[in-house]
């Protein structure tokens, strides 16, 4: 997890929740409980959260504070979940969103 800041010159070592497992598109990865899903994905190197309905273009984190809604994904079967403000929980099923579905467009 090279994308995590181990120690910060001003903030020191940040407190985190428990390290838990969750799945991204079926693959098991780890993140800290309570941190935004988007942070855990970013730390794991995931950039693309969804593909848009009309143009099928990739999108990811943009505002990171729950306003722009670009980072939405299908979480535990529910589409349009703003991953940048939704806390990670152990065992979450996080999937790339295609339009409003977790099925790739050619399978919809």
């Amino acid at each position, binding site marked *: 997890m090279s994308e995590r800041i181990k120690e910060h010159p001003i903030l020191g070592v940040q407190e985190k929740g428990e390290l838990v497992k969750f799945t991204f598109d079926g693959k098991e990865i780890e993140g800290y409980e309570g941190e935004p899903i988007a942070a855990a994905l970013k730390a794991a190197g995931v950039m693309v959260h969804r593909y848009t309905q009309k143009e099928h273009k990739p999108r990811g984190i943009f505002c990171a504070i729950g306003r722009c809604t670009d980072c939405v994904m299908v979480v535990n079967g529910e589409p*349009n979940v703003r991953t940048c403000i939704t806390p990670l929980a152990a065992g979450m099923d996080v999937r790339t969103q295609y339009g409003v579905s977790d099925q790739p467009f050619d399978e919809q």
Partner: protein
Amino acid sequence: MKTKAEVIIIGGGIIGCATAYYLAKMGIEVIVLEGSDHIGNGGSSRNGGGVRQSGRDVRELPLVMYGIRNLWPTLSEELEVDCEYHQDGNLRLGKTEKHREILTRLADSARNVGLDVRMIDGDEVRAINPYLSDEVICASWCPTDGHANPLTTTLGYYKMARRLGVTFITGEPVTELRVIKGKIRQVITPNHVYEGENVLVAAGLDSREILTTVGIDIPMTNSLLECLVTEAQPHMFDQMLGTAEADFYGHQTKHGSFVFGGSSGLERYNKDNGTPVNSSKTAPCICRGIMKYFPDLANAKIVRTWAGWMDASSDGVPSLGTVDEIPGLYVACAFNGHGFGIAPAVGEQLAKLIVTGKTDVDLGELHYDRYKAKI
């Protein structure tokens, strides 16, 4: 700026825009005056998008049936905009025996004037729309009903009318009509005096105040309606929905979102602060109503709510046509919250009426002067 035309239309809603479009198609010069800053700013942009016949009063049924047969099917092509018209039927849902009675009575009277509408039981309802809960025990089913997008349809009429040379002026609230030498002639706003040989008043609720200036009174009042829309959802169904109890109505749009309208029961007493505003109680109530019918929508997120006034007349149907006592004056108002689906037919028939003096559909029962005391 142009202030004279053959026809002056007061009101830039869907009725005004559609009438202007059909008049312009016949080569008539038209000015449309809209009081607010935006075209289609009243009920035209604030309704649930129903294009339905079932559930309507028989007096307005012929007109809406005419529109669904002759105008709606080709409207997107004609207006060069996607009106998102779907003709996939209308389910008017019932959950109690009392509902069944209400729906049966409405269906029977509509069948009498030639509408294909029938009662179906709960299982047949769920065969048509499998997402409906078991609480639904019956529905009236009208396969030729549907829904469309009121925003693009209204603005589509505006765009095409404008393209045909109609003058639209927004921010021009009409304060007075003036009869000159026995005929309607002038339309007064705070800024200008407009002149036309014919004047159509299609200003929704404001029509009453405007018509008062020439001594015409149409008994109507305002009533607040509220709608909400969800985020886009995977495609579920295409029917238009309503309920016997009128606790909600709506459909899934082409975009994937669900548009639902409804009420809290407190609408009549809503505070009128100059603009239609949502009550804090209504949207939660609509949500509770919807979830009883569609448990699957519980997780759908609401992204927006809005309110609009409907112009309610004492007998629930519009006033439409010629004002006999003032030559050159026409009215089209008091659509009672179901003016959208009927609008293309109203616009086309009014245009014909203004130009030829005749209509294809008899408007007699919608005459402005029909209101009588109860005894």
